[in-house]
């Protein structure tokens, strides 16, 4: 198993050398960005089993604050990152405290409602650019603006953050918190009767998830240099995070990366093949993929792979 991790790390490190073309460079940078996002969602959605469909709020807040710092005070966008994280964590607590006392669908609905509420407010709030959105520095003033023309530097920034999320998730899996979350997911009543404070651990998971999502949002805004309400607060941002994690395998370490890589590739090629119409087609495909997944293999692609391995091993055992 250990060599698999080494191979994966090696592939991720040298990938930009093979994808020198700007088109592919951008694609692999986006893959890692979405791997970070899907992994962040995975902490609360996969491990704790709380299906949040409003993570666009954290992504949007993370994306907006750095560009606000630039627009209003000509500051270095990076300074906005901690503020964005703080605001996101605040929202996570505000939404999580009342809803985590409840089960199931409620939480999903509450997260959608809060996300839509905040998207509408941002769209009509002049201070944050209303429907037009915000722009960043056109060209980098100092190295701290992190303004690069190529996507490769961003690729490595996202890779660093991805390593961080993955490291945290790995640690969490092994720790007391991971056991608690799995117990809560398997049966909240049973977990609580054994003394696990379900609302508290779900809230912890939500806070960490929100913080990482916000950080990824900030870096996305710095890379793009422009944000508007629909592209960062839109419901599709939340949905994509869920689908990518679920496609690869929710509640697994590497599932979100697999899902993100597949769907970003799909999206990129759909867009280049069908042009402007590509977006609609991508969402039709997303819908189809989600339906098939939830109907036939809710565990995601990694589960299919595991089934395959198990069957192969069994066959070898009988021979």
């Amino acid at each position, binding site marked *: 198993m250990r060599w698999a991790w080494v191979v994966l790390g090696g592939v991720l490190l040298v990938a930009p050398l093979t994808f020198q073309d700007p088109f592919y460079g951008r694609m692999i940078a986006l893959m890692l960005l979405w791997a970070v996002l899907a992994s962040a969602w995975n902490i609360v*959605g996969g491990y704790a*089993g709380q*299906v949040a*469909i409003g993570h666009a709020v954290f992504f949007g807040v993370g994306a907006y604050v750095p560009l606000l710092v630039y627009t209003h005070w000509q500051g270095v966008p990076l300074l906005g990152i901690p503020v964005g994280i703080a605001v996101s964590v605040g929202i996570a607590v505000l*939404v999580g405290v*009342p*809803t985590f*006392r*409840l089960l*199931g*669908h*409620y939480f*999903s*609905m*509450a997260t*959608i*409602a*809060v996300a*839509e*509420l905040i998207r*509408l*407010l941002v*769209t*009509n709030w002049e201070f944050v650019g209303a429907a037009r959105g915000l722009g960043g520095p056109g060209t980098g003033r100092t190295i701290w603006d992190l303004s690069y023309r190529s996507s490769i530097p961003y690729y490595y920034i996202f890779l660093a953050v991805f390593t961080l999320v993955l490291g945290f998730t790995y640690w969490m899996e092994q720790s007391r918190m991971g056991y608690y979350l799995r117990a809560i997911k398997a049966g909240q009543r049973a977990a609580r009767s054994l003394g696990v404070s379900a609302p508290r651990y779900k809230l912890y998971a939500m806070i960490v998830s929100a913080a990482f999502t916000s950080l990824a949002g900030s870096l996305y805004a710095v890379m793009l240099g422009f944000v508007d309400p629909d592209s960062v607060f839109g*419901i599709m941002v939340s*949905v994509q995070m*869920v*689908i990518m994690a*679920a496609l690869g395998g*929710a509640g697994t370490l590497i599932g979100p990366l697999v899902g993100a890589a597949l769907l970003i590739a799909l999206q990129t090629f759909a867009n280049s093949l069908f042009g402007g*119409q590509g977006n*609609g*087609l991508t*969402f*039709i495909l*997303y*819908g*189809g*993929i*989600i*339906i098939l*997944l*939830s*109907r036939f293999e*809710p565990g995601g692609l990694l589960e299919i792979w595991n089934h395959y391995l198990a069957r192969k091993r069994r066959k070898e055992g009988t021979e």
Partner: protein
Amino acid sequence: MIALQVVVGGLLLGAVYALFSSGLTLVWGMMNVVNFAHGDFVMLGMYIAYLAVVALHAGPLVFTLLAALTLSIVGAVVYYLLIRQVMRGPMLAQILSTFGLALLVRYTVFWFFSATFITLPGSALGGSIRLGGILIGIPQLVAGILAIGLTIGMHLLLTRTTLGSQILAVSEDRQAAMLMGIRPDRMQALAWGLASASAGIAGALIATFYYLTPTVGESLVLIAFVVVCFGGFGSVPGAMLAGLIIGLIQAVSAYYIGPVYKDVVVYALFVAILWVRPQGLMGTA
């Protein structure tokens, strides 16, 4: 006078909210499954009405019946092919399945019609009447009255008929219902058909005066959530009252705060309710 105009307009739209929300609450209360595609079913009803008018020059009665029929079939098929299996699966699958359905429906319509806002051509139903000093559009009036009538009809169907008792029996206790010779699958498929038909009819009714766009379902399903949350899960009378209240709140906030804030106020109210009474305003849990 303007205040009265706003109130009546809000109540008439609220009646339509009541109609499609009662379908959502029926399925929710019965199976504990939330149909995230419910708003998109309303949208389908709108586009079926549009197609019927354009292609068949259908009148309001015909296209409303057509929407009801088509959507009830869609609902039953969705139940048999998707919901029946997913219901037994993990929570993630339950939530994702109808969400995927919503995306599929929404963007397939988007693919054919694009995002352009359209209205029913040469409006099949038009004009307005003056009642007690206020002006009411005929389409709104017809939609509002029909919607309230159908919602009450749905309530009566569930409480006063054998069929309704069978549906409620399955939602109370599936096993016991089976022992009484009721087929749970058939009843649940029927409930899905009924619920989806309510969405389809609501869509056809508002198509006569509302703008048509493929993404309209997104805000409609959130309104339905708020209504169900207000009225209590599984309660049709609750949904009716809550639908009227939400319609009223929207109309009043649109007029006095600004049109863009009508949804903001409703969502904020929803979040506030979740804080204060997470089990819903009239619900118990």
